[in-house]
């Protein structure tokens, strides 16, 4: 007999009434005529520390089964890269880079409240203003109000847009470097301060929706689109707010389709322009892991309004921004675990990814028109365990205008 989750919801609230039949009702667990229970003495101790009380630091007891771990937890992920850049007609250069190490800290308060954070160190060190950077990627409080159906999340949160911005632990994607679309089109990692709701009201249907701080139009660029406009919750001006939401459906286990939307005003967040500079964006994504096949696809389109105001140069000091009005990109990635049918527990996944992106789509004015780029990435990931990936690939970058470049990448990624 499979019990319907969740078992202990008491849908007495206005929210429950609004959600109506979408929320699973409580399962009857009455023991009025049940069996006589003869439990080991350790079980009473385990039960006493469960349910409505915050987790304790009790030492796990092998005999009782479940015990209660610490309320505060630590985890993380990271990746080390070696890149050999081979531009057409130029000299080959190489580098090794501890691209990022991210530390996760979480705390379970009990009563449905939890804290989650990620602190990132990029490029190993910072000294005298040089090197990488240290920054928070996430830091929020979540209140699970109606089990998995409805949680309130407030703090520094990931913008729910696309695939990689939400899930970007290195073993979770193929290739040493993240897809270029997830950098130049979708400005991963994209976090803002906000408040919103997340949940899975019915199995396989998930949502996230936030009211959050917006982008700063002054730092949009032609080559990197809206990426420079992220304010990262550092004295972020919020005169121009934003709404972001994502809905995903998992029609069958291991196959997920997502639709993301974003709208925000970016002009009010800078003194450099008087227009509102609205940014509208939509993304479609999908991923599938079935029978050894590992596939991902993503399409993203971003429209930046009032670009005429950003490009105006009445003082002769240059435009505020040369960002394109229409930004578009997408990729398709296919891989197959050749060890899938074996008993090794390891995964060896040759893959190929084709990307195309243009940060200045359909620009008539050549001053504000940049090249589109086609990228083909071929390589393999070896995962001896799901949390560790050794990676190798070759990237062929073919811009519509300018020099081609080939890049050979080696990397290792981990998460725990």
């Amino acid at each position: 007999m499979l019990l319907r989750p969740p078992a202990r919801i008491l849908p007495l609230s206005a929210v429950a009434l609004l959600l109506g039949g979408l929320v699973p009702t409580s399962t009857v667990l009455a023991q009025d005529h049940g069996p006589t229970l003869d439990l080991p003495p350790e079980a009473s101790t385990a039960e006493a520390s469960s349910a409505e009380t915050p987790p304790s630091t009790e030492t796990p007891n092998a005999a009782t089964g479940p015990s209660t771990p610490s309320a505060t937890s630590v985890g993380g992920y990271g990746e080390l890269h070696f890149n050999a850049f081979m531009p057409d007609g130029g000299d080959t250069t190489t580098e090794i880079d501890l691209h990022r190490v991210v530390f996760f800290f979480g705390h379970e308060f009990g009563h449905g409240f939890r804290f989650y954070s990620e602190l990132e160190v990029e490029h190993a060190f910072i000294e005298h203003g040089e090197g990488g950077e240290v920054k928070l990627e996430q830091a929020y409080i979540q209140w699970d109000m109606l089990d998995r159906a409805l949680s309130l999340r407030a703090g520094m949160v990931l913008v729910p847009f696309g695939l990689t911005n939400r899930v970007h632990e290195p073993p979770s994607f193929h290739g040493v470097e993240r897809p270029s679309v997830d950098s130049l089109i979708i400005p991963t990692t994209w976090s803002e301060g906000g408040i919103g709701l997340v949940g899975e009201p019915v199995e396989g249907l998930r949502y996230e929706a936030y009211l959050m701080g917006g982008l700063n139009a002054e730092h949009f660029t032609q080559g990197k689109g809206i990426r420079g406009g992220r304010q990262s919750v550092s004295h972020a001006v919020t005169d121009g707010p934003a709404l972001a939401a994502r809905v995903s459906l998992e029609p069958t286990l291991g196959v997920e389709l997502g639709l993301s939307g974003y709208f925000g005003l970016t002009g009010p967040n800078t003194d450099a322009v008087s227009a509102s500079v609205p940014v509208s964006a939509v993304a479609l994504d999908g991923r599938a892991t079935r029978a050894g096949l590992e596939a991902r696809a993503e399409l993203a389109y971003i429209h930046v309004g009032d670009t005429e105001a950003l490009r105006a140069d009445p003082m002769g000091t240059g435009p505020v921004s040369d960002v394109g009005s229409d930004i578009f990109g997408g990729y398709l990635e296919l891989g197959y675990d050749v060890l899938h049918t074996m008993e090794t527990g390891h995964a060896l996944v040759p893959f190929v990814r084709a990307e195309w992106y243009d940060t200045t789509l359909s620009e008539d004015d050549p001053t504000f028109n940049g090249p589109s780029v086609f990228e083909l990435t071929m390589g393999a990931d070896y995962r001896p365990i799901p949390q560790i990936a050794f990676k190798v690939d070759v990237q062929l970058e073919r811009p519509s205008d300018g020099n081609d470049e080939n890049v050979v990448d080696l990397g290792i990624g981990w998460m725990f």
Partner: protein
Amino acid sequence: MKTVFMKHRGPRGTHGLVYGLFVSALLTASVASVARAETFFTLRELLGSHFHDSTQVGYERVHPAADVRAAIQRRTGSAPKDEYVVYVARSGEHVDGYALFDQERGQHELIDIATFFDAQGQVTDVEVMTYREAYGEAIRSTRFRQQFVGRDASSGFAAGRDVDIISGATLSSGAMARAVARAALLVDVARHQPDTLAHR
């Protein structure tokens, strides 16, 4: 000449109104709701519910032998504990089923998992008793847990091959598969090798 707005730092005007309405709606919903605990079931609740028609649920302490320990390590990637408690439901002298409560690590946290078996050692249900991770809680879904029903110690439990994983919950999916695989092996011991049981 370009006009430059003098900025107010903070929500104002219509934007402030939007913030206010949104936050008010959220707070209203929050106050009206009932907070849940992270523990969804207790051991007592699950035993009482699953073996409702049995007359008695007792327990046996199982110390897996070397070959079983090796099998568990091979399937789960980690060494088993020295002792497990297997719950046994009976109606008189007849065994109705078994249950095992255990923990397995997801990405960061331990997940408390209960696995139930019929008298033949086939899985009848898997439940998440307590889930602590920030992500991956979708393994509590019925359709994911349903995959384990009917499997036994001889079945495959490899996540991604024998068990379909949930998108965005790869590690948690694997954790449940490992927990059920271990439980199936231990219950198999309890059923077929009574000499290995250390009765209380």
